[in-house]
């Protein structure tokens, strides 16, 4: 019996939904979650309030410019957070302290100290926490099944390619010396129309921070091993925006993991022209008894037609129940007082890996990952 058939719906407060709204929408689409209010801090800029209001209007629920008042007045049990990245953890801590279970958009935070605050608040208040992820995609679940079956033997290496084929404004080299550097926030606000605004916020963040959680969450799911040390190479290779703000849009990371497991990650926002669909996402697993190559996008259906816009993906993912499965997992975790599929501690470990990789990329040195004791 799935959790959709158990218990009453949980009341959901959407705390700041200023970037892509798929996290909130995914939770709300599951029968166990009922949106009751959108809320944010009053001191947020107008564009934040506008987007929050739009979401509230679409779902015909109130929007309050006071998070604590909204919680007190509407008595939600869940907080779903899709704010600018630098505010993620503060909102999560406040929600946890109000005894709300939390679903948070990625990245966990731009600072490890903020992740630690979340862990403390979540554990002290004994609430459930889940980082949004893609671990329930059909190809990933298949990979997990193969690993668990033992057909690969002992895992020796895992390699993930996560190339995201989206532009981020003009290409690198397009700014004249007399032009001002591109403004991060303004550029990401403009990217909202295409859904490519995962890094929106005051602080520029590179693709390792924005997207790294997805492939690293795959690696954790399939290996259950922590990353202990990293060697990374990072650069701005494609986009003027990233170059102007000194953040990466392309990265490679060697991951030295527990139990002598070796991993690698190639990640980048490679531009619209570099793939006919959303991007190339692959996993390669090497084990003592066999190896596995997985295309994360499968199953797909290919659709081509006259006049097809260049921007339309030729391959459509099908049988993708990731959103529902994540929401269901969260409901089960609440019902059964168990861990979620990507809880605060694992999310913090992933965040620490990303930060170590960024430092390694900057310094050219191997960097130990700063895990909690």
């Amino acid at each position, binding site marked *: 019996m799935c959790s959709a058939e158990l218990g009453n719906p949980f009341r959901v407060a959407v705390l700041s939904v200023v970037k892509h709204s798929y996290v909130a929408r995914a939770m709300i689409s599951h029968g166990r979650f009922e949106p009751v209010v959108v809320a944010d801090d009053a001191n947020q800029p107008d564009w934040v309030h506008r987007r929050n209001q739009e979401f509230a209007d679409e779902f015909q629920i109130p929007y309050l410019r006071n998070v604590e008042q909204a919680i007190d007045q509407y008595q939600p049990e869940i907080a779903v957070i899709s704010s600018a990245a630098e505010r993620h953890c503060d909102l999560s801590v406040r929600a946890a302290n109000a005894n709300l279970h939390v679903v948070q958009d990625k990245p966990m935070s731009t600072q490890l100290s903020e992740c630690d605050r979340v862990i403390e608040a979540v554990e002290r208040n004994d609430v459930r926490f889940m980082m949004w992820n893609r671990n329930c995609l059909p190809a990933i679940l298949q990979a997990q099944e193969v690993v668990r079956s033992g057909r690969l033997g002992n895992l*020796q290496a895992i390699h993930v390619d996560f190339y995201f084929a989206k532009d981020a404004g003009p290409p690198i080299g397009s700014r004249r010396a007399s032009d001002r550097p591109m403004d991060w926030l303004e550029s990401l606000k403009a990217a909202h129309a295409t859904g490519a605004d995962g890094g929106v916020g005051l602080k520029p963040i590179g693709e390792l921070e924005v997207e790294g959680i997805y492939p690293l969450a795959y690696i954790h799911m399939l290996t259950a091993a922590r990353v202990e040390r990293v060697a990374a190479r990072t650069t701005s290779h494609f986009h003027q925006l990233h170059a102007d703000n000194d953040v990466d849009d392309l990265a490679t990371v060697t991951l030295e993991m527990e139990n002598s497991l*070796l991993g690698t990650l190639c990640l980048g926002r*490679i531009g619209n022209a570099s793939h006919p669909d959303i991007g190339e996402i692959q996993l*390669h697993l*090497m084990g003592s008894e066999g190896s596995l*190559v997985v295309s994360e996008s499968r199953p797909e259906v290919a659709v081509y037609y006259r006049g097809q816009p260049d921007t339309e993906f030729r391959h459509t993912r099908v049988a993708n129940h990731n959103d529902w499965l994540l929401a269901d997992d969260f409901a089960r975790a609440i019902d059964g007082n168990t861990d979620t599929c990507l809880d605060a501690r694992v999310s913090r470990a992933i965040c620490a890996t990303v930060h170590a990789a960024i430092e390694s990329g900057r310094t050219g040195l191997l960097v130990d990952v700063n895990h909690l004791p």
Partner: protein
Amino acid sequence: MIRLALIDVGGRCSDYCAALPHLHGATITSVVDADSTIADKVAAQVGAQTTAHSWVELPAAAVQSIDAVVVHSPLPRRQEIVCQAAAAGKHVLVDTPLAESSEAAQGAIEACTSASVHLMVGQPMRFMPYQRTIRESLEAGKLGTAGLVRLHHWHPEKSESIDRSTSQAVMDLAVHEVDIACWLFEAFPNFVYARSLSGITPQQGLQLHLGFPAGGMALIDCTRSLPANSDPYYSLTLIGSTGAAYADDHRNTNLLLRSDCVGLKVSQGHDYFARQLQEFVDAVKHDRTPNGTGEDGKRAIAVMLTAIESLQSRRAAKRVGDRYVLC
């Protein structure tokens, strides 16, 4: 017509027989192998008039009639044969790796330069369809500036020769792939970090992380640990500033459905051997630089030897001037 001698041809009879009908402007006149049975068999198949146990045992008249040699000698003897052939005024095509050390490679390069003969370091992977297509796309400007190369090459396991050192075996595992990365970036890497896989020896599994100038980067994953009767697996991705290329056996696999579902990899064909040979012949004929120079060969050796040091020390290496230093 360029007259070729094959040195230490070994088990390549079928390769040469398949290549000959496609080879223009060259003929094979001599075959050398320590095993006379092999030499005789190959000579008969390719129409060569002369055989010998070794280069030095070739009759003087035969040596005089040769324009170029193709050296397949075992690595410990390779540089010596190259130098001998060069001293005799013969152009040389030699297998990768060129030599056991950068110094020995330099010696081979200098011997050929002094003798004013062409030296081509054979790298069959450069002539295979995946690599050729990607390189051509890069050269045509379709992909912009190379940013990232990701390469997986998984081989079935094989028993290791006791005559080979660990370093030689590790070199053999990944030197071709390192050359491909350097060839695509047209540079020495400025960062080298190597790790082996747990549970297997470095000569069975190696992971290389390379950094290139202007932010370029490569991850190379080579193993020799697939089950003994399995097909190898290969994939090469190049991400450029304005485009990307994906060459993957995964994509080029059909299905056989019986009691189980089995993947059938579609072959890339074997014309790479003929293409490489033709490239050498054409470089000699037209007196131009071949695809795969002595410097390319020396570069791949230097990177692999650095990778071995990195592996043993668990430290990365950076390029300082014309050498690598562990950091």
